[in-house]
């Protein structure tokens, strides 16, 4: 199913992963490295899905979310970037000379999807306080049904948000990336070039955690031992 006919399954996947992400199921299927794999399975290209997912994952490797807060919408970002990459790559018949550009475009669209999801969530969250207050008052009178309904219906809202973001941004991202690749604006080279550069961004954010925890000794140990092993091999 390497075509836009897979849009609905991909959007359903985006919806389910949004539940994992926002509803605190926290099975971690929403992490881009997993969502990329799942999107890849739907499109029949799991390896390429993992490739896109891993790059997105590396960008956010050292980002930590405290107090259950989430900033960027990871499931939408993962599914959209993996799907756009696979679809455009398929259309370009796996042309290695543009795969780096296809990947860069897919990741940018994925990040856009993630930010869109985040802002939608912010709006939803700030507007939810008054309905919750209303059901709280009802509960204090002994009526719990409204509370259950509101809470469970929010699962549907999260699903719908994830579903719609994927439904809209996968075809849009596909069209934009195809146009960019066709007009040959951007860098040449295979996807390797991104695999070389992007990890440095991840390292920057990982280092923050390591140094904050005063774990420089273990960091340097890992760095030196691995460096020695790689040089020896």
């Amino acid at each position, binding site marked *: 199913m390497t075509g836009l006919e897979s849009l609905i399954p991909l959007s359903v996947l985006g919806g389910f992963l949004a539940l994992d992400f926002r509803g605190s199921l926290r099975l971690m299927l929403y992490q881009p490295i997993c969502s990329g794999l799942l999107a890849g399975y739907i499109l029949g290209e799991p390896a390429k899905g993992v490739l896109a997912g891993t790059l997105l994952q590396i960008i956010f490797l050292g980002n*930590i979310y405290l107090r259950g807060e989430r900033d960027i919408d990871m499931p939408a970002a993962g599914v959209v970037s993996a799907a756009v990459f696979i679809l455009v790559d398929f259309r370009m018949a796996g042309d290695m000379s543009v795969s780096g550009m296809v990947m860069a475009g897919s990741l940018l669209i994925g990040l856009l999807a993630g930010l869109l999801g985040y802002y939608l969530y912010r709006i939803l969250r700030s507007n939810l306080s008054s309905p919750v207050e209303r059901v709280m008052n009802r509960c204090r009178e002994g009526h*719990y049904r409204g*509370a259950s309904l509101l809470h469970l219906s929010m699962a549907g809202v999260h699903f719908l948000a994830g579903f719609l973001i994927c439904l809209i941004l996968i075809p849009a991202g596909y069209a934009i990336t195809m146009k960019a690749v066709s007009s040959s604006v951007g860098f040449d080279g295979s996807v390797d070039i991104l695999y070389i550069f992007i990890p440095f961004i991840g390292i920057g954010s990982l280092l923050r955690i390591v140094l904050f925890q005063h774990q420089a000794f273990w960091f340097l140990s890992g760095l030196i031992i691995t460096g020695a092993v790689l040089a020896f091999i």
Partner: protein
Amino acid sequence: MTMLDLNILWRLFLIQNSRNDKFHDGLGFFFALIPLFRSLSGKDLSRRGELARRNFDYFNSNPVLSGMVAGVTRKMEESEGMADTGQISRVRNTLSSVLTAKGDEFFEVVFLPLALTIACIFTIYGVYIGPLVFLLFYNYFHFKFRIIGYYRGLKLGQEAGTGFFEDLSKISGVLRGATAFTAGVFTSIAFFRGYQFGGTPVVIAGLVAIAAVTLLRRKYSPVFSVIILFVLTVVLLSLLSI
């Protein structure tokens, strides 16, 4: 495991569904305990209202460990003499604050970066079981803490935190070192591959990227720092190839 336990446990998996600015996960926590309140109050509306007044309020805790608060709350609500003293809300607020701090440190700061870095190292080398390894590794601890936390709270009540936080801190201490070591491994691999790909210029570019993330972080949020840098990387690579 009784039906009531199961009913509470599955609801705890949805605790953040209705997160909002004013009560955070207050509704989610109350929703998880509705089966308990129904069984305690029967059809008595005034009793139900009383239970809601005590337990439906602001609630914010690490979602994985919030089961312990639910267990403690259940234990206290089922104990005679605890209900009207205001102790339940005091214990809930204190415990949830400590669990937030400890749980976030363990899961978000230490464990998740460790598991994800390992998975990424696997996939960088084309070993596509990386995501599977990550899911198994993470969810083993995730489910263990979710379920054990609830039963610990139910069994020990207000004493549930005693010993637990110390154990969690010990495990965190060990894993902190492991996370740092794995970050070192990842860094070494990145620089080695960079050097093989383009020699010293790539290594210098890598160092600049790392420094840029660190500097951007002083002004922007971590997410925006890496997004800005990623966009700049793509623009730079495009300009270099034109």
